[in-house]
């Protein structure tokens, strides 16, 4: 019995078949390039960025106002499971609160700014630009600083403002943020390798 002859695979690479809808191939929505998922995400990031700018600016204005405008002491109540704790709202406490919030929003503003730039390059369909390595490293660094700042600020609040009411934070809470920061740094190195390969392929004629 003769076996059927196998057809030889053609040397041509299979072309991606696209449907008539822009940005959607048969295998699902396109993730990078113009009119893709990343351009949708970029729009969302743009909106969030503008919102964060407004919030940060308002907080900074409030901070400046709190420095110059005297305020009458208002009591704030820190509530916990076993009752509340009265604390006078002093100027230093207000400045600390506003400063910490401004720094927190400012940090996320920096992260969003870099993310927007990265997503812009994804929208252009060129993810391995050398600048993206620097942007990702900046995101990782900012994330690390913001996380450490939040951890320290939480500790200060737990120790000074609400002793006994708020549980002091442990090292265990830092595990997830540290993991995220490390993942971002590893991603930055992946992008560095991608940028190197991109350059290599650009110089291959």
């Amino acid at each position, binding site marked *: 019995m003769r076996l059927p002859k196998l057809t030889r695979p053609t040397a041509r690479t299979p072309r991606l078949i696209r449907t008539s809808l822009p940005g959607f191939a048969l295998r699902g929505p396109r993730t990078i390039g113009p009119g893709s998922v990343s351009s949708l995400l970029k729009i969302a990031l743009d909106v969030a960025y503008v919102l964060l700018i407004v919030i940060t600016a308002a907080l900074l204005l409030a901070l400046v106002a709190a420095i110059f405008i005297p305020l009458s002491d208002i009591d704030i109540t820190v509530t916990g499971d076993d009752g509340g704790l009265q604390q006078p709202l002093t100027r230093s406490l207000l400045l600390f609160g506003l400063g910490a919030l401004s720094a927190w929003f400012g940090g996320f503003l920096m992260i969003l700014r870099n993310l927007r730039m990265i997503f812009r390059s994804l929208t252009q369909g060129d993810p391995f630009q050398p600048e993206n390595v620097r942007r990702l490293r900046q995101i990782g660094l900012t994330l690390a600083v913001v996380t450490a700042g939040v951890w320290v600020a939480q500790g200060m609040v737990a120790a000074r403002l609400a002793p006994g009411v708020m549980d002091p934070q442990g090292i265990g809470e830092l595990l997830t943020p540290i993991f995220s920061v490390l993942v971002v740094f590893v991603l930055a190195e992946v992008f560095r390798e991608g940028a*190197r390969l991109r*350059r*290599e392929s650009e*110089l*291959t*004629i």
Partner: protein
Amino acid sequence: MAIRIQLDRMLVERRMSLTELADRVGVTLANLSILKTGKARAIRFSTLDALCRELDCQPGDLLAYEPGPQGSGDSDDA
């Protein structure tokens, strides 16, 4: 890089311009200039094939090795 592409000589001998060769080979003029000036990191067999076909020569006619200071390929990556 100690490998030289002798495109200039081949073009003069055949009285062909770089633009014409780029058209025939199907490579952009910018890429062919990179190849000619020795800035290229690598050459595809398909490009070499097209160059040899259009210039009617052997790969050895295009490529030459000139011993010199050893330049590492990744030195200019940083």
